[in-house]
């Protein structure tokens, strides 16, 4: 049976599937090489480009590299998610396209690209079209302030090294709620509307504790700049002792857990995936979306997942500092480790109800966050 199926599949799909796979391999290689090339080029151009353009060139190349990573992120995140889900559920997951299904997401992406772009007849075409773009834009724009390391000479590896980085993060992530609301309203579908309204309520509510928990960190470090926050966490026992999560035990540990919970809620992941609760609202706010517009929401979702994980790693887990000194690789390991934790939770836990979700936020998370803010500030003041 399987053999026959395979033969039919090969006969129908064989030559055709090879084209996107080869194309994707080329694109994959190019994109993955971009940050490396950008770094090398930035070293080289320093000698050739006029002094005035030097900074601009580095910014352009660095941005291109990081956007490349972000565009690629959902593709390997979806593969990772499917593998994590499969192994949690005692099965194999994608195995056919590429080694252990590594190219499955590329094949899916190509499929989504070729799908018909459907817009419901009664939809608000402007909002319907703008929502996926805004979702992706807000997810990607927030990455501008995510630094991934410091060079020997003190240059921060980031698209923009803002001195108010965390403030920018809080501001930009709020746009995501707007995109979901637009998608829900613009689809002119009752299920989408429910999804949009739930998402708006949920994301706006959980932004409050997120901001307060960021303030807990800021109050202890005394800076809004993320590189400064990371620098304050260097050193200690085994190189991990001064990570914020281990300071003022257990206050910062609680803050980290709460921050991660708020992150789950803001990215609409289980147990807080209420806006797209499949068993209740069909597909929630993206019920009417198909093809590439639908893929854009996925891009945004996985972008947000990575963003929240990276922020948690930067604020509480020491970013790129750790037992082996300062290393960008360490930062990516921490970030993706937390992404895997998000996936693990998704495939383990049931979903909360919308009133319980809001109850958790307003009755527990916000008061505890305020308490943490007050206590850490007082302790810091006394020390």
């Amino acid at each position, binding site marked *: 049976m399987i053999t026959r199926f395979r033969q039919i599949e090969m006969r129908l799909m064989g030559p055709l599937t090879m084209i996107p796979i080869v194309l994707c391999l080329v694109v994959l290689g190019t994109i993955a090489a971009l940050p490396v090339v950008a770094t090398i080029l930035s070293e080289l151009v320093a000698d050739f480009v006029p002094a005035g353009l030097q900074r601009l060139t580095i910014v352009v190349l660095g941005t291109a590299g990081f956007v490349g990573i972000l565009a690629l992120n959902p593709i390997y995140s979806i593969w990772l998610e499917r593998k994590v889900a499969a192994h949690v559920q*005692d099965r194999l997951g994608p195995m056919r396209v590429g080694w252990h299904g590594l190219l499955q997401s590329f094949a899916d992406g190509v499929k989504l690209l070729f799908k018909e772009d459907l817009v419901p007849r009664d939809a608000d075409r402007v909002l319907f079209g703008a929502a996926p773009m805004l979702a992706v834009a807000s997810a990607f724009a927030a990455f501008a302030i995510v630094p991934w390391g410091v060079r020997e000479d003190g240059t921060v590896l980031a698209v923009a090294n803002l001195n108010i980085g965390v403030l920018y993060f809080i501001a930009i992530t709020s746009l995501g709620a707007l995109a979901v609301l637009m998608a829900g309203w613009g689809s002119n579908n009752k299920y989408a509307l429910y999804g949009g309204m739930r998402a708006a309520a949920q994301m706006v509510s959980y932004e409050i504790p997120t901001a307060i928990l960021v303030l807990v960190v800021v109050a202890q470090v005394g800076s809004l700049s993320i590189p400064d926050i990371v620098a304050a966490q260097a050193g200690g026992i085994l190189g991990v002792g001064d990570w914020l999560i281990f300071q003022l035990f257990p206050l910062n540990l609680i803050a980290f857990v709460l921050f991660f919970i708020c992150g789950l809620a803001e990215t609409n992941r289980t147990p807080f995936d209420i806006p797209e609760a499949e068993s*209740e609202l*069909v597909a929630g706010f993206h019920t009417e979306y198909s093809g590439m517009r639908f893929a854009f929401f996925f891009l945004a979702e996985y972008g947000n997942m990575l963003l929240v994980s990276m922020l948690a790693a930067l604020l509480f887990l020491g970013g790129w500092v750790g037992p082996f000194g300062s290393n960008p690789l360490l930062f990516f390991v921490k970030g993706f480790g937390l992404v895997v934790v998000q996936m693990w939770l998704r495939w383990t*836990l049931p*979903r909360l109800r919308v009133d*319980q979700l809001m109850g958790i936020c307003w009755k527990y998370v916000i008061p505890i966050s305020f308490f943490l803010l007050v206590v850490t500030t007082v302790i810091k003041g006394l020390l």
Partner: protein
Amino acid sequence: MAEHRSPVDGAPLVTLYDEELPPDNSYAFSPEELEEDEMILNMGPQHPSTHGVLRVELKTDGEIVKDARPHIGYLHRNFEKHAENIDYQGVIPFTDRMDYVGSMGNSLAYALTVEKLLGIGVGERVAGIRVITAELQRIASHLLAMGTYGMDIGAFTPFLLCFQQRERILDLFEWLCGARLLYNYNWVGGVSHDLPEGWTDKCRRFLDEFVPVLDEVDKLLSHNKIFIRRTADIGIITPEMAKDYALSGPNLRGSGIDWDLRRDDPYLGYENYDFDVVVATSPHGPVGSCWDRYFVRVREMYESVKIVRQALDRLPAEGDVHENVPRFVRPLAGEAYCRSEAPRGELAFYIVAENKKPIPYRVKGRSPCFVAMGLFHEITRGEMIADIIAIIGSLDIVLGEIDR
């Protein structure tokens, strides 16, 4: 107006109206009757978690459901009328398609009814095989209920763990009779195939390996805090309500009423087996909640394992499963009603026979899911949209049986 009367005692069976009934749309909600902020939400028949093709109309105010009305009939296949034109044995495949995830129970109930009509019994080996298959079917059906219920609440993983075990039961059935879903296994007076060689060993091995997996899934889902908060205080069916609406099976026992036909009106020698009737104890809230109904099913699986083990031990080594199968089924004029404990509750058939005719005059199925749908509007009023899904899942309905 044409009256159909029983050929036995002349009692009216069903009344058919010649004139066309006036169109009556009062059952559906009309947009005019909506108050401010209210909205009609149509859930189904194509919806991921209405368990088939149930359509529910909800009158909502935000997330609160003011009123809910189920619309059934999207899977109506006219089984009862078909049965009036087919010989007695030929009806069995139709009964399989009623509750299509618990086929063994359906054909068993029908076969028992026809046997009662004919006044024949079955041998010990056939009775043992029927008990084994019926209980395995109960486990498979409850596994499906448990897995899909987890999925309704948002937990995806228990579903696949349950389905792996269900597949193993289907494999056993496939080995037994060649079919995986609709078996046509219980015949009038016997079963279609004897147990193949080695089947009992494989069945025992399955039971040994199944119990630890069930423990694991139970730990993963049943006592999860989120799961309990989602299910333990919604969809309350009080014991009085359960009696008034004639619920049966796990739904009735989930309301704390100790009633199981296998013990209280035994058939197939169930009185000789040692098992407990599972009744909800409701540690997490008022009795009769969704969690109670769910947990009754989970614990019933352990009891079924006990019964299958005993049946396997007692199964006579020799015996012809076709020994009592009648060559012609031509009962004398009469009627028979026989009920049995199917996975979803009290499944019964009522058959009226004309004298020495090979086809039944009337076949009526009493479906536990249809009865359970009767109180749907009562327990959903005032709950939230997410709870509607939880309540539908906890009633464990199969639309094939409701619509027939």
